[in-house]
C-alpha cells in the first residue's frame, strides 16, 4: 500500500519541528498542589491530573485524523516538577545549549518555571529518598565510579507498564466508573484499610471524568473547526473527529476509528500523568483487531482508509516526548527514546498462532512512518507463519533495527517459572526495550537500575579498590596477586556482586517506598488489572503482579576476562597473576603485547567455543541467582535482566582495564552480545554461543544485537535464509534478537551530514533512535560493532 499524501505531510511536520519546552503542565500541577495541600496524596494527584486536562491548551493539527496533544504545540514537551523539579532547575540554562537532545525555551516559559520550581524544594523523590538510605548504602550510592546506576526512577516517574487498554476500549471510563461505584457502595468502611481504599476509588472517579472531559474538549474544538472549514472533505473529517471524541474514551469504542482514538487518548494521558518511560501498548494487534474486523465486514471502512488511520496513530506516538535528563557533567547519553513497545504476532492463551490482518498492517505502518515510535516488536514461535516472517525480514532489510524479535518458546516457560499462569504467560507483552511481562496486570519496574558486573570484576581483582579513583569502594576480597587458583578469582567476584546487589536492593526499595507515598498514579491504575479489585494504586502494589527488574551489564567482558585468567594464567601458565594485576593497574601502559595476548590468545565468547560460552552462562547465573533472593515493598520479587539500554558506553566509562584486553574507560559489550570485534565466526556462531546463556533465568529480559551488512540481504533468497536463521533462534530458545542493517560507511556519512540523514534510525541497545541524535562517541561505538560482511 502506498503512503498517502496526508501521512507524508503530517510526517514532515513531526520531523521538522524542533523540540521545545512547554511550562503549561508544570504551572497547572503546581497550582493544583497548592490548592490541595493537606488532602490525601492520591486525591491530590487525581485533582492535579484533572486540572491539567481541563485547562491545558489543545489543538487539532491540519489534516489530522487521530487527535490529542501532549503539550501546547507540536513537539513541545511538558515538564514534571513532581519528579524533575531539581534537575530541570539545574539544567534550565543548558537545555538550549546542548548539542544533542536540545530543547528550545522561550524567556516567558523560563520565567514561569523559575517561579514555580522553588515550590517543589524538598518535595521530590530525588531529594527525599537518598536521605533515607543507611550510611553504608549512601556511600555506595554516592560513588563517583559506581557499580550501580539506580537513578532512573529517582529522577523520573516509573512507567514501564503494559496496561490493559482493552478494558477501556470495551467498557469506556463510564464502565470503569460503574464498577468503582459499586465497589465503593459495597465497601465496609469500618474495616481497617478500607478508608484508604475509598480514597483510591474516589481518585479513580476523578481521573475517569477528567479523561472523558478531555476528549469532550476535542470534540467541541473539532465542531468549531468544522463550522469554519471551507474544504468540504476536511469539514466532514472534522465532524467525524467531533463524533468520535464525544464517544471515546468515555464510552466503549464501536468502530476502528474510535478504538484507535480511544487508544491514543490513553497513551497520551498516561504520559501526562507521569513522566515514566516505556509505557508500552503491548499486544495491540490483538485487542484492536475485533474493531477492524467488524468495520471491514460491515464495509464501514476500506483497508486503505484503515491503514491511513493506523499510520496516523503511529505518527502521533512520535509526538509524545519527554524532556531528557542530561546532567551537564554527563558525557554520554543515548537519545531519549520513549520506547512505547507494540508487539504483534505470537500465540494466544490456547497456544494457537494469532497473527492477523492487523499484524501485517502494523508492519506496513512502520514501513510507512519509519520513525522511532512505536518500538515495534514481533513474537515468534515454532508455528509462526512464513509470510509473517517474510514481511518481518523485509522491514528489517530497510534498516533502522525494527522490528525486534521475541521468542515465545522461551519467554512463556520463563514467565511461568516466575509464578505466572500459563494463560497469562502466553499473553505476555514487552515493556520498553526487551522486558517480557504479563499483559495488562503487572507493575514490573523493569528498568529499575543498571548493575555493572564488569566493575565488580575490577574490584575483585584489586581487593575492592577502584582503579579510577584509587579509593577502596568494594569489599576486601583478598590480594588477587596472591590467588593461586581460578576458584579464588571467581569467589572474589561472586562476593563483590553479592555485596553490591544488596545495596542496590536497599536503594531501589527505598525509592519504591517514596514513590508509594508521593506519586500515586490513579489514572493508569484504573486500567491495570488488580488495582480496582484490591482497591490499591499501582504504587502500593495494586497490580496483580509486581516486580523489580535491575539489569546486569558487562556479561561478555566478564566472561572473556575470566576465561583469559583461567586459560592463560592457571592452565597454560603463560602469565602470572602478579603480571596480570600490575598490567591492569597500569592500564596496559607500555604493555601492549601483554594486552594483545589477553585479547587474541584466549578464546572469546561468541564464537561457539564451549569454554568462554559456559563462562558467560556462569556469570549470568551468578548475577541472576543473587537478584532472585530479594523482594520489593509492593510484595513482588526481584527479576534479573541482562541488557544495557544504551548504557554499555557510559558504564564502560567507569571501569578500569580488564583481563580481556579491554583498556580503561572503553565501552562494554552490549547486553548478552559478544564483545565488539571478538565474534569472528559469523551470526550462526553468535547464536550458538548466546544460546548457552540461561535465558529462562533472566526473566527481566536479555538483549542480542546482530548487525548485518546490506549485502547479506540483497534478494528474496537472502531473506529466506535470514528467516531460517530466525527460526533456529526460536528453536535454540534465545529470548530476543534485533538486526541492524547498515553499512559502516552509511553511518560515517551520516556523522558528517546529519542534516540529510534524519531518516536514519539505529537501535541503541534495544531501542531505536535517530542516529544523528546520538553523541559522537556512541556513534563511533555503533560503527565499530562487528559487521557480518557476507
Amino acid at each position, binding site marked *: 500500500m502506498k503512503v498517502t499524501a496526508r501521512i507524508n505531510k503530517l510526517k514532515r511536520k513531526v520531523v521538522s519541528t524542533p523540540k521545545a519546552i512547554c511550562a503549561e503542565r508544570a504551572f497547572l500541577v503546581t497550582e493544583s498542589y497548592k490548592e490541595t495541600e493537606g488532602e490525601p496524596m492520591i486525591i491530590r494527584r487525581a485533582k492535579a491530573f484533572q486540572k491539567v486536562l481541563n485547562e491545558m491548551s489543545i489543538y487539532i493539527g491540519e489534516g489530522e485524523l487521530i487527535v490529542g496533544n501532549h503539550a501546547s504545540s507540536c513537539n513541545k514537551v511538558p515538564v514534571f516538577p513532581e519528579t524533575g523539579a531539581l534537575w530541570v532547575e539545574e539544567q534550565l540554562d543548558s537545555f538550549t545549549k546542548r548539542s544533542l537532545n536540545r530543547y528550545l525555551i522561550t524567556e516567558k516559559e523560563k520565567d514561569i518555571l523559575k517561579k514555580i520550581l522553588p515550590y517543589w524544594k524538598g518535595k521530590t523523590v530525588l531529594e527525599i529518598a537518598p536521605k533515607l538510605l543507611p550510611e553504608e548504602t549512601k556511600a555506595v550510592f554516592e560513588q563517583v565510579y559506581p557499580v550501580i546506576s539506580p537513578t532512573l526512577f529517582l529522577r523520573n516517574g516509573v512507567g514501564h507498564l503494559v496496561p490493559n487498554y482493552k478494558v477501556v476500549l470495551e467498557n469506556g471510563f463510564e464502565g470503569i466508573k460503574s464498577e468503582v461505584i459499586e465497589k465503593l457502595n459495597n465497601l465496609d468502611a469500618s474495616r481497617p484499610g478500607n478508608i484508604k481504599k475509598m480514597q483510591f476509588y474516589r481518585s479513580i472517579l476523578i481521573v475517569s471524568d477528567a479523561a472523558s472531559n478531555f476528549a469532550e474538549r476535542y470534540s467541541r474544538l473539532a465542531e468549531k473547526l468544522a463550522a469554519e472549514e471551507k474544504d468540504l472533505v476536511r469539514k466532514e473529517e472534522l465532524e467525524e473527529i467531533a463524533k468520535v471524541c464525544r464517544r471515546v474514551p468515555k464510552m466503549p469504542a464501536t468502530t476502528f476509528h474510535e478504538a484507535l482514538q480511544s487508544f491514543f487518548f490513553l497513551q497520551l494521558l498516561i504520559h501526562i500523568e507521569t513522566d515514566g518511560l516505556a509505557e508500552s501498548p503491548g499486544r495491540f494487534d490483538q485487542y484492536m483487531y475485533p474493531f477492524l474486523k467488524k468495520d471491514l465486514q460491515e464495509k464501514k471502512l476500506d483497508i486503505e482508509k484503515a491503514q491511513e488511520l493506523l499510520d496516523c496513530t503511529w505518527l502521533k506516538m512520535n509526538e509524545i516526548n519527554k524532556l531528557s535528563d542530561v546532567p551537564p557533567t554527563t558525557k554520554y547519553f543515548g537519545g531519549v527514546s520513549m520506547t512505547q513497545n507494540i508487539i504483534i504476532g505470537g500465540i494466544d492463551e490456547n497456544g494457537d498462532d494469532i497473527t492477523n490482518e492487523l499484524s501485517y498492517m502494523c508492519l506496513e505502518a512502520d514501513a510507512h512512518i519509519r520513525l522511532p515510535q512505536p518500538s515495534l516488536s514481533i513474537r515468534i514461535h515454532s508455528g509462526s507463519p512464513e509470510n509473517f516472517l517474510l514481511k518481518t525480514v523485509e522491514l528489517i532489510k530497510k534498516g533502522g533495527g525494527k522490528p525486534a524479535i521475541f521468542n515465545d518458546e522461551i519467554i512463556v516457560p520463563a514467565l511461568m517459572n516466575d509464578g505466572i499462569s500459563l494463560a497469562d504467560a502466553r499473553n505476555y507483552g514487552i515493556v520498553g526495550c526487551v522486558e517480557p511481562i504479563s499483559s495488562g496486570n503487572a507493575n514490573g519496574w523493569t528498568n529499575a537500575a543498571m548493575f555493572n558486573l564488569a566493575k565488580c570484576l575490577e574490584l575483585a581483582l584489586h581487593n575492592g579498590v577502584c582503579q579510577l579513583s584509587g579509593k577502596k569502594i568494594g569489599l576486601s576480597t583478598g590480594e588477587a596477586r596472591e590467588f593461586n587458583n581460578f576458584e579464588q578469582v571467581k569467589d572474589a567476584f561472586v562476593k563483590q556482586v553479592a555485596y553490591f546487589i544488596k545495596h542496590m536492593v536497599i536503594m531501589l526499595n527505598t525509592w519504591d517506598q517514596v514513590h508509594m507515598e508521593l506519586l500515586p498514579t490513579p489514572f493508569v491504575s484504573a486500567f491495570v488489572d488488580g488495582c480496582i479489585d484490591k482497591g490499591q494504586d499501582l504504587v502500593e502494589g495494586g497490580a496483580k503482579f509486581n516486580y523489580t527488574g535491575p539489569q546486569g551489564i558487562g556479561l561478555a567482558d566478564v566472561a572473556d576476562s575470566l576465561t583469559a585468567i583461567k586459560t592463560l594464567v592457571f592452565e597454560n601458565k603463560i602469565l602470572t597473576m602478579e603480571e596480570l594485576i600490575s598490567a591492569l593497574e597500569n592500564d596496559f601502559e607500555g604493555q601492549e603485547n601483554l594486552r*594483545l595476548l589477553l585479547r587474541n590468545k584466549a578464546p572469546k565468547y561468541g564464537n561457539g567455543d564451549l569454554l568462554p560460552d559456559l563462562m558467560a552462562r556462569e556469570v549470568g547465573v551468578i548475577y541472576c541467582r543473587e537478584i532472585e533472593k530479594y523482594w520489593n515493598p509492593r510484595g513482588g520479587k526481584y527479576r534479573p535482566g541482562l541488557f544495557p539500554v544504551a548504557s554499555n558506553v557510559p558504564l564502560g566509562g567507569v571501569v578500569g582495564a580488564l583481563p580481556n584486553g579491554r583498556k580503561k574507560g572503553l565501552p562494554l559489550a552490549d547486553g548478552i552480545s559478544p564483545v565488539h570485534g571478538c565474534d569472528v565466526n*559469523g551470526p*550462526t*556462531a553468535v547464536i*550458538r554461543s548466546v544460546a548457552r546463556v540461561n535465558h529462562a533465568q533472566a526473566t527481566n529480559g536479555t538483549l542480542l544485537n546482530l548487525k548485518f551488512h546490506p549485502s547479506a540481504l540483497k534478494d528474496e*533468497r*537472502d531473506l529466506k*535464509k535470514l528467516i531460517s536463521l530466525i527460526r533456529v533462534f526460536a528453536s535454540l530458545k534465545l529470548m530476543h534478537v534485533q538486526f541492524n542493517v547498515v553499512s559502516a560507511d552509511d553511518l560515517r556519512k551520516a556523522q558528517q551530514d546529519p542534516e540529510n540523514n534524519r531518516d536514519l534510525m539505529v537501535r541503541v541497545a534495544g531501542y531505536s533512535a535517530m542516529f544523528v541524535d546520538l553523541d559522537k562517541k556512541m556513534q563511533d561505538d555503533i560503527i565499530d560493532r562487528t559487521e*557480518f560482511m557476507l
Partner: protein
Amino acid sequence: MNTIINSGVVFNIQYYSIHDGSGIRTLVFLKGCPLRCEWCSNPESQSLKPEVIVLVNRCIGCGNCIKICSEQAIVNTIEGNIINRNKCIACGKCTEVCNAGALQIKGKFYTVDDLLEQVMEDAIFYEYSGGGITLSGGEPFFQADFTYSLLRTCKESRLNTAVETCGFVPYETIERCLPYLDSILYDIKHLDTDIHKQFTGADNLIILENVRKLAKTDVNLIIRVPVIPGINDSNNNLIRTAEFVKELGLKELYLLPYHSLGVRKYSQLGRKYKLNINPPTVERINEIKEILIDSKLNIYIGG
C-alpha cells in the same frame, strides 16, 4: 583406487555462507589449485602447503617472531617484517608467539572427523534452511582423496553437499565423488582456449570437456562466470558462454562480478598482484544482463 585419505589442508571454515548454494552453508576452503588465475581473490589457496601471511599494520614490533624462528626466515625491514619464503618451513611457531595477530598461518591439517565436527556445529541451521557444506578452495578436487573421503562422510551424516570447482582436474576424480555430491558450482572463465591459458596458466579443453560430461549426470550443475573487466567480459565471450550453457541443457547462469577484496592478500603473502582493473560498474552488470536476455537463461548476479 578409492583410497581413504584421512587428512587434508584447510585454510578457512566460514559459517553462514549464503551465496554458495542452497540454504545456509558452511564453506570449507581447501588448499591447492592447478590454475593461477590472475584475479584470484584467494591467493593463499593456490599452494597446497601451509603458508604464513603477514598483516603488517597489526605488527607492534615486539620481535617475538624473529627470536623464535629456527630458520631465520623473518627479516625486519622498513616495510615491516618480511618472510623469506625459501627459508620458511611453515612450522607456525612465529604465529603462536605473535599476540598481535600480525602473523597467521593459512593452512591447517584436519582429519575428516575433526572437520566434520566443526561443520556439524551448524547442523541445525542446515536443517532449517536446506543448507549444508560447500567445499571451496583452491580447487577441492586438487586434494582428490581427501575431498572424496570428506564428501562420503558428509553424505553418511545426511549433509547436503556442494563443491565449487574450476573443473581443471581429471574427470575420474569428480566422477567418483558424484554419488556423494548434491551440487557442483562450476566456474567457466573463458571460452577461448588461448586467452584462458594466458590468464589462468592452463587451457580450457579439459574444463569444457568435464562440464559436458557432468551435464549428462544427475548432479545439480550450476555454472558460474566471474566477470573480469577486460579479460572475459566482452559481449562476444559472454554471449558464447551463455550459448554454451544452453547447449548443456541448463537454465541458469550465475555471474560473479570481479571484486578487489583479495588484492591486499597478495602483499601479505609476499607476492605481486598483476592486474590493475576496477570492479565492473552496476551499469555494466545491468548491460550484461540485457545482452544475455536473448539466451533465455535465468541470469543471477552473485552466488
